[in-house]
C-alpha cells in the first residue's frame, strides 16, 4: 500500500480553502457596508444642497434643479398601506384555511398554488396590472366605488384605472404569498395539545383559532407582516407600470402618484444633471435605509422567537 506523502501540501490546501471561504463570507459584509457608503457618497451633492428639507420638500423640478422626496415617500407609504390592509387579513384567513379547515389533500396543492404567486416575476404583474387590471378598474370598479361611497375626496377625480389604488392592489397580491407562508408556518407550530384542549372544552374551529392559535402565534404573525412590508416598500416594476408616475400628493386614491422605486426606474437613465442624479441616488439611499431597518427588525424579531421556541421545546 502506498502512503500519500505527508508534506506541506495538504495543509496548504486546507489553508487556502479556509481563507477562500472566509473571504467569501466577509464579502457579504463588504457588500452591505459598500451599499451604504457608495449610496451616501453619490448622494452628497443632493444632501449638501437640500439638507434635511429634501425629506419633506414636494418640489421636483429638473429644469431648475430643485428636488424633494416628499411625493415619492408619500406614494410609497400609501401604496404599501393599501397593500398591507388587503394582504394581511387575506393571508391570515388563507393560512387558516390551509392549516385548520382544509383536508391536507386539498391544502397541499392550494398552498403550492399560493406559493407560485411569489415565483411570478414582478414585471409580469406589471403587464397584467397595466393591460388587464387597470382598464377593469377604470370602467367598472372605480365608477362603482364612486357611486357607492359618494364623492369623498378619497375617491374623487376621474377613474383612470392607473393610480395609487391600483398599485396598492397589485402590491397586495404580490406580498400575499410571503405573509401567507409565514402565518401558515406559525399556525402549524402551535402545539396540538393546546388546540385539542380547546376542542375538548367544546370550542369550534374558529373559537380555537381566535383564542388559542392567534394568541400563541401572534408574534410570528407580526414577523411575517414585517417581511411583507419590506417587500412591498421596495417593489419596483409592478408599481412603475400602474402607479401613473406623477410627482404629486393627491388626496384621491384614484389619482396617479409615484413611489421611490418607481421614480428611480423611470427617471434614472434620463437624469443628465449631476444634482438630478444625486437626488435620485438620495431617494435610493432613503429606500435602502428604510428597508434595512425593517429587515433588521424582522430578522431580530424572528430570531428571538426561534430562540424562545427552542427553549420551550
Amino acid at each position, binding site marked *: 500500500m502506498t502512503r500519500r506523502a505527508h508534506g506541506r501540501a*495538504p495543509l496548504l*490546501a*486546507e489553508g487556502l*480553502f*479556509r481563507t*477562500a471561504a*472566509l*473571504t*467569501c*463570507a466577509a*464579502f*457579504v*459584509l463588504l*457588500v*452591505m457596508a459598500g*451599499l451604504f457608503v*457608495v*449610496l451616501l*457618497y*453619490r448622494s452628497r451633492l443632493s444632501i449638501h444642497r437640500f439638507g434635511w428639507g429634501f425629506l419633506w420638500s414636494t418640489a421636483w423640478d429638473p429644469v431648475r434643479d430643485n428636488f424633494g422626496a416628499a411625493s415619492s415617500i408619500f406614494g410609497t407609504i400609501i401604496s404599501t398601506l393599501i397593500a398591507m390592509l388587503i394582504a394581511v387579513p*387575506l393571508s391570515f384567513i*388563507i393560512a*387558516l*384555511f390551509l392549516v385548520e*379547515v*382544509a383536508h391536507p389533500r386539498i391544502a397541499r396543492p392550494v398552498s403550492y398554488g*399560493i406559493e*407560485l404567486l411569489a*415565483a*411570478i*416575476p*414582478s*414585471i*409580469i*404583474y*406589471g*403587464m*397584467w396590472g397595466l*393591460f*388587464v387590471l387597470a382598464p377593469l378598474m377604470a370602467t367598472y370598479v372605480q365608477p362603482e366605488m364612486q357611486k357607492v361611497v359618494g364623492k369623498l375626496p378619497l375617491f374623487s377625480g376621474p377613474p383612470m384605472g392607473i393610480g395609487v389604488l391600483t398599485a396598492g392592489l397589485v402590491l397586495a397580491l404580490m406580498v*400575499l404569498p410571503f405573509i*401567507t407562508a409565514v402565518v401558515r408556518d406559525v399556525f402549524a407550530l402551535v402545539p396540538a395539545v393546546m388546540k385539542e384542549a380547546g376542542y375538548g372544552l367544546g370550542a*369550534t*374551529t*374558529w373559537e380555537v383559532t381566535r383564542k388559542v392559535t392567534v394568541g400563541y402565534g401572534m408574534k410570528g404573525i407580526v414577523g411575517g407582516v414585517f*417581511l411583507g412590508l419590506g*417587500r412591498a*416598500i*421596495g417593489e*419596483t*416594476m409592478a408599481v412603475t407600470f400602474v402607479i401613473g408616475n406623477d410627482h404629486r400628493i393627491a388626496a384621491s386614491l384614484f389619482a396617479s402618484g409615484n413611489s421611490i*422605486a418607481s421614480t*428611480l426606474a423611470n427617471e434614472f437613465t434620463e437624469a443628465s444633471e449631476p444634482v438630478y442624479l444625486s437626488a435620485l*441616488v438620495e431617494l435610493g439611499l432613503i429606500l435602502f435605509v428604510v*428597508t434595512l431597518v425593517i*429587515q*433588521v427588525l*424582522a*430578522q431580530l424579531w424572528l*430570531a428571538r422567537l426561534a430562540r424562545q421556541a427552542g427553549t420551550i421545546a
Partner: protein
Amino acid sequence: MTRRPAWPRKAMDAAVKVVSALAAALGLGFLAWILFVVLRHGAAALNWTFLTSLPSAPGSSGGGLGNAIVGTALMTLLACALGVPVGLLAGVYLAEYGRGTRFATTVRFLANVMMGIPSIIIGLFVYAILVLPTGHFSGWAGGVALALLVLPVVARTTEDMLAMVPNALRESALALGSPHWRATVQILFRACRAGLLTGVLLAVARVSGETAPLLFTALNSPYWPRSLDGPTANLTVTIFNYAMSPYPAWQQAAWGASFIIAIGVLALTVVTRTLARERK
C-alpha cells in the same frame, strides 16, 4: 342558569370556514387569471421569427427578440458563474469553519437582510461602482448586479443544507484523516447535492425574471450582444420599454417576451421543487 344556544357559534364557525375557502379560491383565481392572460396574449405574439430575429423599427410589425433572449441567457449565466461559487464558499464558512462565532452570526444576519434589500437598490449600487467609472452601461454590470442577488440566496441555502448533514458523517471523514476541505467538498457536498442544486436553481429562476437591477446596468439594446462590454439586450427591460410605448406591435412583442419569461421562470421553479420533493 340559562344555557346559551350553540347555533350562533356554529353559524359563525361555518361562516369563517366558507370565507376562508373563498379567500383561498380568490388567491388561486388571481394566479390562474394572470397565467391565462400571459398565455393568451403571449401565444399570439410567438413564432419562429420572434424567437430568432432582431427587433423591428418602432411602430412596424414583424421582427423579434432573439437578441434579448441571448442577452438574458448570457447575463443569467454570468450571474451564476460569479454568484454561485462565492455563495457556496460563504455558506461553507457559515456552516463549517465559523460555526458559532460572532463573525459568522453577523454574516448570516446580513445575508438574510441582503435578501430583502430591493433589487433596484442593488442596481443603483452596481451603477455607481461599475457603470460610472467605466463611463458606459454594460452586460458585465448587469451580470454582476444579478450575481449580488444570487449570492445571499446560495449562501444561506448552502449553510442550511450543510447543517442538515448528520454530524457523524463529518466526524468519520475527519477521523479518517481527511482535511476539512476535502471532507466538505467530497463527502458533505455529495451528501446534500440535491439540496444545493435546488437552492441554485431557485436562485436562477428568481434572477432571470428580474428587471429593476438591469435598468441602469445592462440597459437595453436593439442589436445582437457581440460582447458584454456595452449595453446588452435583455427580455425584461425590453418588456418595460415596449409596454410603455404607444405602438401596438411593440406591446404585442412585450406580451411575447412576458410569455417566455413567465413560462421559463415558473417551469424552472415547478420542476426544481417537484424534484426536491420527490427526493425527500
